[in-house]
């Protein structure tokens, strides 16, 4: 047994159960209920109900001092609940099932909570529950909620010890709050300087980042218009210099080469660790993107990116790919050239950019052959297609009719109503049929400027698909067929362009009676953006950037550790100094007396440890009669102030005065 442990055993060797304070248990139940509350949306209803029922029941048992359910009941119950989770999720691993299991086991633990040790286990489970909430949301409101949960949890942790029962009422909460506030500087130092390791360390469960909408690496009719129903933020952008106009903001995402007649898919491409070369024409645009977690590897950048963020490569299609999927709020800086000229096409690329499915869509192919016979120049063919879209009765709509097997024919000659993916797909098909190398680019277009924060918000509803054709003189050239049908989409955004703006999500609408609400939402977004940019996006890359930016040059983790230790020690010193000062400031009587004793000690009259103030000053008076009068008064005053019932302020001042003047 180690010297710091209690040995609480009765004579028979049975360990005694240290009791848990019932009041603390009530607090603990409240905290756990608060910690589980944000999960209520994801957990199966029966489990949520079970948890709260058990917590309530345990509370009643504690208040009425009743007996707990017998122990033999617990194992079957735990197994039953575990089986329930298994049936619900078909697994016990993974994020969702893991959280469900954690909640279920906490409920079971409540039913066998008897002593102090069980209380400690519950507190630890509570901290795990707090953490599990962060896997679902790290937004400001959630973090504020969880902070409050931690305050109560710490108070409960203080109170589970029956020895701390002297803290009554709200004193434990006050203490917990004080501790948390005092802990914040150390937390900040650790947060900023603790060397961050890029995760994950091992494989994550498949459902780790479930429930995220966003662009996928495929495009079929309806897949982009589906996204237009979501006003979730995809990313935010802060421009370093003056931002380009809205119509130039093509945020490049996955580039799709392969077409099977209905669905476009990405082609697996090699990526280089350096930017792919092209000839810029015009000014550079520098900006930082603060990306929401997408669970995808690609990063979005303006056409065409000329630099690479850390741990990122570029494919020959100018697509940025990170080494790990973006599962955290991620901030990266890139610069792009909106005007450019790219290089030659390889034979392989040319054949891929012209490949069509073996059969299907005969009418579209016929139309393309007709155009080609009239004028085989690529520019003329592009114009022919755009003219078709512009002059025939094509409509831009969020709710296009369904298309049949020959999706391109169906769209071009029958329905003529579509969203951007319909136009892009039909356009690339026509170009390839006419012999012009072409490909689909998906991504986002435009965005909403938040004037309050001077940044751009790009939402999922801004998702877009356009085309690129390869022209002999200029290389890859962006052609957006949507702009031929609905020029407003590009110039003013989605709301101005669609025929049915009523089906847009609230935050994508403009004007109207609820405009003030939208402005309010923008203010809230500003707060969220700052939170994302400065707090959530602070990861391994940002950490290195920040420290290098402070003038330390490139920093490795060893230097970072040293910086952290230095900062922590600095804080420790300041903290200790403050405590000392306060200690003395708080006890002027002791300070005066110590000064008095120190002066006498320098003259060889040290106070013995056994001497009280009166005895000591008596001795001083005997040995140094010339000091008798002030010394004895000091002794009497100090004795009265120290051991008397109250310390009158006048007497304290008198003592200070006397000791200050005292010269031995």
């Amino acid at each position, binding site marked *: *047994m*180690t*010297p*710091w*442990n*209690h*040995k*609480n055993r009765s004579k028979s060797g049975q360990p005694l159960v240290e009791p848990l304070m019932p009041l603390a248990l009530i607090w603990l139940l409240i905290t756990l209920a608060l910690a589980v509350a944000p999960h209520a949306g994801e957990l199966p209803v029966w489990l949520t109900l079970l948890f709260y029922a058990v917590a309530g029941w345990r509370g009643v048992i504690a208040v009425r001092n009743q007996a707990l359910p017998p122990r033999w009941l617990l194992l079957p119950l735990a197994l039953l609940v575990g089986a329930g989770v298994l049936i619900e999720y078909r697994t016990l691993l993974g994020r969702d099932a893991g959280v469900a299991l954690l909640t279920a086991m906490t409920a079971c633990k409540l039913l066998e909570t008897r002593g102090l040790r069980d209380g*400690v286990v519950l507190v*630890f489970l509570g*901290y*795990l529950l707090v*953490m599990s909430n*962060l*896997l679902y949301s*790290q937004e400001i409101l959630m*973090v504020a909620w*969880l902070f409050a949960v*931690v305050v109560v949890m*710490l108070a409960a*942790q*203080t109170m589970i*010890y029956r*020895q*701390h029962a*002297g803290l009554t009422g709200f004193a434990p909460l006050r*203490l917990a709050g004080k*501790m*948390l506030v*005092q*802990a*914040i*500087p*150390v*937390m900040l130092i*650790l*947060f900023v300087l*603790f060397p*961050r*390791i*890029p*995760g*994950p*360390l*091992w494989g*994550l469960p498949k459902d*780790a980042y479930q429930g995220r909408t966003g662009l996928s690496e495929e495009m079929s009719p309806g897949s982009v218009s589906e996204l237009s129903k979501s006003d979730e933020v995809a990313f935010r952008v802060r421009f370093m210099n003056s931002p380009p106009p809205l119509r130039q903001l093509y945020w490049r995402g996955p580039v799709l080469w392969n077409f099977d007649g209905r669905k476009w898919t990405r082609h697996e491409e090699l990526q280089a660790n350096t930017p792919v070369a092209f000839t810029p024409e015009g000014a550079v645009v520098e900006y930082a993107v603060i990306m929401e977690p997408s669970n995808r590897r690609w990063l979005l950048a303006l056409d065409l990116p000329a630099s690479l963020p850390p741990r990122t490569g570029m494919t020959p299609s100018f697509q940025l790919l990170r080494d*790990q999927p973006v*599962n*955290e709020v991620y901030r990266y800086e890139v610069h792009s050239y909106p005007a450019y000229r790219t290089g030659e096409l390889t034979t392989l690329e040319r054949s891929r950019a012209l490949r069509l499915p073996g059969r299907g869509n005969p009418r579209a192919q016929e139309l393309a052959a007709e155009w080609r016979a009239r004028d085989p120049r690529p520019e003329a063919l592009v114009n022919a297609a755009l003219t078709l879209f512009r002059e025939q009765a094509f409509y831009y709509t969020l709710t296009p009719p369904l298309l049949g097997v020959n999706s391109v024919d169906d769209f071009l000659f029958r329905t003529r109503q579509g969203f951007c993916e319909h136009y892009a797909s039909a356009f690339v098909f026509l170009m390839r049929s006419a012999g012009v190398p072409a490909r689909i680019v998906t991504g986002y277009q435009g965005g909403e400027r938040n004037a309050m924060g001077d940044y751009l918000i790009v939402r999922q509803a801004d998702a877009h698909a356009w085309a690129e054709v390869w022209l002999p003189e200029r290389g890859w050239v962006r052609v957006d067929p949507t702009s031929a049908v609905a020029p407003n989409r590009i110039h003013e955004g989605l709301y101005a362009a669609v025929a049915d703006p009523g089906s847009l999500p609230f935050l994508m609408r403009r004007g109207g009676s609820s405009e003030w609400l939208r402005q309010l939402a923008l203010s809230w977004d500003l707060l969220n953006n700052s939170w994302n940019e400065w*707090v*959530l*996006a*602070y*990861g391994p890359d940002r950490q290195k950037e920040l420290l290098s930016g402070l003038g330390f040059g490139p920093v490795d983790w060893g230097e970072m550790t040293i910086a952290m230790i230095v900062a922590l020690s600095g804080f420790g010193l300041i903290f200790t100094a403050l405590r000392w000062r306060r200690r003395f400031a*708080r*006890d002027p009587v*002791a300070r005066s007396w110590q000064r008095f004793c120190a002066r006498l000690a320098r003259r060889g009259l040290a106070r013995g*440890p056994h001497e009280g103030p009166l005895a000591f000053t008596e001795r001083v008076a005997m040995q140094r009669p010339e000091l008798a009068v002030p010394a004895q008064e000091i002794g009497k005053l100090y004795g009265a102030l*120290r051991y008397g019932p109250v310390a009158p302020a006048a007497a304290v001042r008198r003592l200070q005065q006397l000791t200050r003047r005292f010269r031995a």
Partner: protein
Amino acid sequence: MLQNLRRRFETWVVRRHPPATDPVALTRRRLYILPTRYGYAFAALLFLLFLWAVNYSNSMGFAFTFLLAAVALNSMWRAHDNLLGLVIHPGVAEPVFAGQAARFSYRLEQPGLDPRYGVALQWRDGLPQYVDVPAQGSATVMLTIPAERRGWLQPGPIRVLTRFPLGLLQAWSWVTFERSGLAYPRPRGRRPLPASLPGGGGSSIGEQGLGSEDYAGFRSYAPGDSPRRIAWKAVTRGGPLLVKRFTDQARPELWLDWRLLGIDNVEPRLEQLCQWVLQADGAGLQYGLWLPGRQIPPASGAVHRRRCLEALALFRYEGQR
């Protein structure tokens, strides 16, 4: 190995802070702090949370882990400060007989302005006795310590400890006080009381001659006097505590004599003498105690009994630890 290390540490600590006779103030140099079982478990929990945060690249997960770590650090100096400056006064215990348990009461004083919560005293591996010490006040802790031998009781190092506020760390100190209580010999032995001698001075009213037979006026109260003899009527009239005096006619005198016992060993002799003292006192007899080098003339009463028992407890004590 661990046991050995612990013993060496304890002897080092005791040597560092030698036994004191005065109140001991807990200074920085006397305080030690280490994690408790739950503290180590908490460290493991923090490590788990950290891995979780790394694996999910969860920014707030890092913040939460670091916050808990910082709180643990904060609780470390709080535990330390919870003991710092406390003054432990030497324990006092009523005398007991060897083989009984002595109840030591220690006073914990907090001269400062902040109250101290959950401070315990612990003797060896006994249960820690917890108490709260109010600001600029004091609290008393009772420790039950078995008296194994007669003589001065020396409980050895007493641990002052606290786990306030979170129970993750234990701050502690050792205080050792010299002689803090007395143990009389264990009353044991089957020999009957020796025969009494006829009374020496007839009807004397001396200190030794206080009887209970005939009323002989008042004298002022002295500690140890039987409450039955106090003149309560005088007290109710507002007068001083007075004790009625009685005289006995020729009370027999009893000597409890070391030399009467033909036992070789010292301890059994003392135990028998102790038994005799209790029997004689119980019978209300006048008795004297004869020890080599120490004689107590015959008398009776609580004070006399105490004198005799103390003499027995400390007889040839110097050689013993």
